């Protein structure tokens, strides 16, 4: 046990989301860790300034207003443009940043940017050798362990059927966990193909190596609906836990979910 291992938590509200960083290791409460965490937050604030659809001077808002040509946007926008195309192809159109709206289609990469930005910002924590980190951006998590003998992080999966309860616990030393659903903000997910609000599922949790893709796949699977688990089986390296609208819980065969007491679910 590493009960005495120093640990520190940091929280800031960015992009309208609570962003938490937890660090374990001898220097968790030291200046190097504090500086790395500040770089994480600065990174996310920079992304927010570029991508926010709520800020009229963001590059995304200016593209939608027609005052900025996509080709003239900065390198981070171009990176997201490329990812957006890959995401649409990879999900067969279930994930698309061009959403149907009243006056034609709107470019809204928010659904991609949160996971991508957290993944990207986590590089400052990966760089901390001999420390473990866990970054949670509004319910999407990216983890890493820089200590060879580190215990895994334990990520509780929120139960959308009953607020504040957990479905179970995932133990991981690295990688990502993303959950898409309607629990926190009402029906905010849109089927990009026709603008409807999917309702077959309550939540989809996807676990895998990259938060960018875990997040995209969770959103796409939520739009996919009833056969989300079967669809996700085709995504190599990713596992999923799905709660259906009628309360059933299904998951991909290899996903190991621990009950709260630490006993593996059957």
């Amino acid at each position: 046990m590493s009960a005495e291992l120093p640990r520190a938590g940091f929280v800031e509200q960015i992009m309208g989301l609570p962003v938490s960083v937890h660090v374990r290791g001898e220097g968790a409460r030291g200046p190097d860790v504090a500086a790395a965490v500040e770089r994480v937050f600065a990174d996310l604030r920079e992304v927010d300034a570029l991508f926010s659809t709520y800020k009229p001077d963001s590059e995304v808002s200016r593209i939608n207003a027609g005052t900025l040509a996509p080709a003239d946007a900065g390198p981070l926008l171009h990176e997201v443009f490329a990812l957006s195309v890959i995401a649409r192809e990879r999900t067969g159109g279930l994930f698309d940043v061009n959403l149907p709206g009243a006056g034609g289609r709107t470019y809204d990469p928010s659904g991609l940017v949160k996971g991508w930005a957290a993944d990207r910002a986590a590089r400052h924590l990966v760089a901390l050798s001999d420390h473990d980190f866990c970054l949670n951006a509004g319910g999407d998590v990216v983890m890493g362990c820089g200590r060879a003998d580190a215990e895994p992080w334990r990520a509780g999966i929120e139960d959308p059927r009953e607020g504040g309860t957990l479905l179970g616990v995932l133990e991981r030393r690295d990688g990502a966990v993303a959950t898409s659903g309607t629990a926190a903000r009402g029906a905010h997910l849109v089927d990009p193909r026709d603008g409807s609000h999917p309702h077959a599922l309550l939540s989809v949790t996807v676990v895998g190596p990259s938060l960018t893709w875990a997040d995209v796949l969770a959103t796409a699977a939520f739009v996919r609906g009833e056969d989300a688990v079967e669809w996700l089986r085709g995504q190599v390296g990713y596992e999923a836990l799905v709660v259906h609208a009628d309360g059933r819980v299904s998951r991909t065969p290899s996903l190991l979910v621990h009950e709260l007491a630490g006993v593996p679910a059957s």
Partner: protein
Amino acid sequence: MRRIVTAFATTVTAIVLLFSYHTSTGGSGTTTAAVVRPVTPAAATGVATTSAAATYTGGVAQTQWGPVQVAVTVAGGRITAADAVQVPTGNSRDDEINAVAVPILNQEVVAAQSARIDTVSGATVTSDGYLASLQSALDQAHL
């Protein structure tokens, strides 16, 4: 096992009640972003035993409902107690709600710790809902 789950459900309901009760002091629809920063241990309440207990007081989070501040006691790497040291007040109705909700916040943090959860994945948690969330309790424990 089941009792832990039930405890979560009850506590979250009560905490939501606490923070969603819109008081006359609550201002209009504008949201003040809550910024919680790590602080150093305020006071070590533990005496010289094998697992020294220490009380950590988190930073004051300015919310649209008023200031919120939580203190947690950690012993042997585990949270043994949590208390809201500052909660929104403004009228007698607030005080009545707080009298019920504050001890329940305490239970929630301790229950989360007994389940040994480090973090929570869920459908997008917004800043508005954060203070009522289990993640908030986990963060407070390590600030």
